């Protein structure tokens, strides 16, 4: 037998995984050819791990950002209401700091 509380627990747990399909806040990593050459993949994987570990309402997206090659890897934060922040020459360690600075703005996913 399933209780209503258990039903809600399943809902909240799985909704977290499905937040990808309805993103609120987005952290866009420039993963074009130049970005990847400058280490964007590592930044991306680290960002995903960090966001997942902290259960933040933030979706990590790879996009080919049109930015000068010297700025790569580039990370762009787009909030749910469209505000943008751009970070350049981001290392894997720095992306964790960026996420930390955004944690209050984005908040946690329900049930996280």
């Amino acid at each position: 037998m399933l209780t209503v509380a258990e039903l809600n627990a399943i809902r909240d747990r799985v909704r977290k995984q499905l937040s990808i399909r309805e993103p609120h806040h987005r952290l866009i990593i420039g993963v074009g050819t130049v970005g990847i050459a400058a280490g964007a993949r590592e930044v991306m994987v680290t960002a995903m791990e960090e966001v997942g570990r902290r259960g933040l309402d933030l979706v990590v997206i790879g996009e080919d950002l049109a930015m000068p090659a010297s700025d790569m890897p580039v990370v762009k934060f787009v909030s749910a209401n469209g505000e943008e922040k751009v970070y350049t020459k981001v290392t894997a360690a720095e992306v964790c700091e960026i996420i930390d600075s955004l944690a209050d703005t984005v908040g946690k996913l329900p049930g996280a």
Partner: protein
Amino acid sequence: MSLIRSHVLVCGGTGCFSSGCKKVQDALQEALERHDLANEVKVVETGCFGFCKMGPIVMVYPEGAFYCQIKPEDAEELVSEHLLKGRIVERLLFKEPVTEEAVPLFNDIGFYKKQRRIALRNCGAINPESIEEYIAHDGYQALARVVTRMTPEEVIEEVKLSGLRGRGGGGFPTGRKWEFARAAQDDVKYVVCNADEGDPGAFMDRSILEGDPHSVIEGMAIAGYAIGAQQGYVYVRAEYPIAVERLSKAIKQARELGILGKNIFGTDFSFDVGIRLGAGAFVCGEETALLASIEGHRGTPRPRPPYPATKGLWGKPTLLNNVETFVNVPYILRHGPDQFAAVGTETSKGTKVFALAGNINNTGLVEVPMGTTLREIVYDIGGGIPGGKAFKACQTGGPSGGCLPADLLDTPVDYDSLIAAGSMMGSGGLIVMDEDNCMVDVARFFLEFTQEESCGKCVPCREGTKRMLEILERITEGEGTEADIDLLEELAEVISKASLCGLGQTAPNPVLATLKFFRHEYEAHVNEKRCPAGVCQALLSYHIIEAQCKGCGLCKRVCPVGAISGEVRQPHTIDKNKCIKCGACVAKCPFKAISR
């Protein structure tokens, strides 16, 4: 910890299945593994997106990029460009038929813009084989609320307030039907879901069962609680294997989790659902025939009353609703009757799903608010008629319905307006016909169908439809007389009044509707022995217009029976004794020199 950053949704409905979605899914998975992205990107099989013509459909989240007609060969580019480097692959996006412009996002596509998805809310959005994804989309919340916090009477009151009417075609108010079943005094009652979708070309119920089986189960369980039933059955045709498989899986998952079975959510309410397969007889969509078939008898109707609500399955009170009706129920109980009733018209609330087919650019499944006009469905959503041809008519309600001509295109789609215009809502088949369709032949096609599907129990339907079909065949073969048209009308009246069930009572409708709006076509067949649309072969006579023929010889080469002769650069001629009227020469002639 989950590291998934992207979901790739691949449509797994019957339409996309037949255009090869399984191979696309496998190719995507392989490409992801090659690029070492299998841990970051998850491929999910979903139900029908509705845009069947554009299948196989692939949707990539979080961007919401909508790719169509994807082949297994495209998987590599999709993965290496979009999923690795974040570049949307423009060549694989949907292009609007008129502007040829690529549209990256699902919601910006004309086909979806005017749609309002309530019944299809989860189709294409979730993995139908995962009860957890359904629960994450607030699935089973309505059932939990109903059984723990509401009385059966309150549930029925909410359904009544919502204004929901039966989506199987009849349009009977659902809340009142539930009230009758509730009032019936018996210890044992049943809830039955009619998924015996028989209209040619209609596939609304199939897509819902394939794409969102849990909503149907939830709707049935709520109905069970409301009327006091502990057992439900879904009667579905065996020729819907994917629907049956997904529904079976869904029932199994719901049982394992304790959502079906004894003491649901810790209450006294117990409910279970079983599946009964039908062999695909059209008459088994009629409620009493359907119940007979579930009982293991031959599927034939019986006179009503008693109605199933008082005496149904095995003589017990039975509530029978269609798939689309049940799927609306959890939405109403979750969001409240007002939110549902805010959509639609005064007498027809909510939305209606249509299977758009025939001579139209965007074929597929569409869901529109009641009151949307046929013109909006055909032109804005359906993208108009291919090849710039003229719209002639659209058939609603399948073989039981009628067709409406171009000057009634602004008819709002709701139960009452369609009946007033001379057609009916039906279960949701919408077939568009252009100038190349002969309306007498269309009527003949539907009569051939109903005559074949007549169960034979009552004389008016068994004999009457046969006689009507014979007359229509006579007319299309050029042997009809004016008296035949009168006889058709007379027979139609008797059959619709005297037949036992809905099949017979509505069988003459396509003839009556075509006679009402396209009588001139019948008269051309009978009086002038001419088929204005050039469809009825017996009435065609091919000849070459001398002045236009350049003597290129293409027609001569393509004629399968060697009926065309002539010298090069000289006008050719057709031997009418040899000609089999196949039309191959007309299709080939570059100078439009052959008339029929």
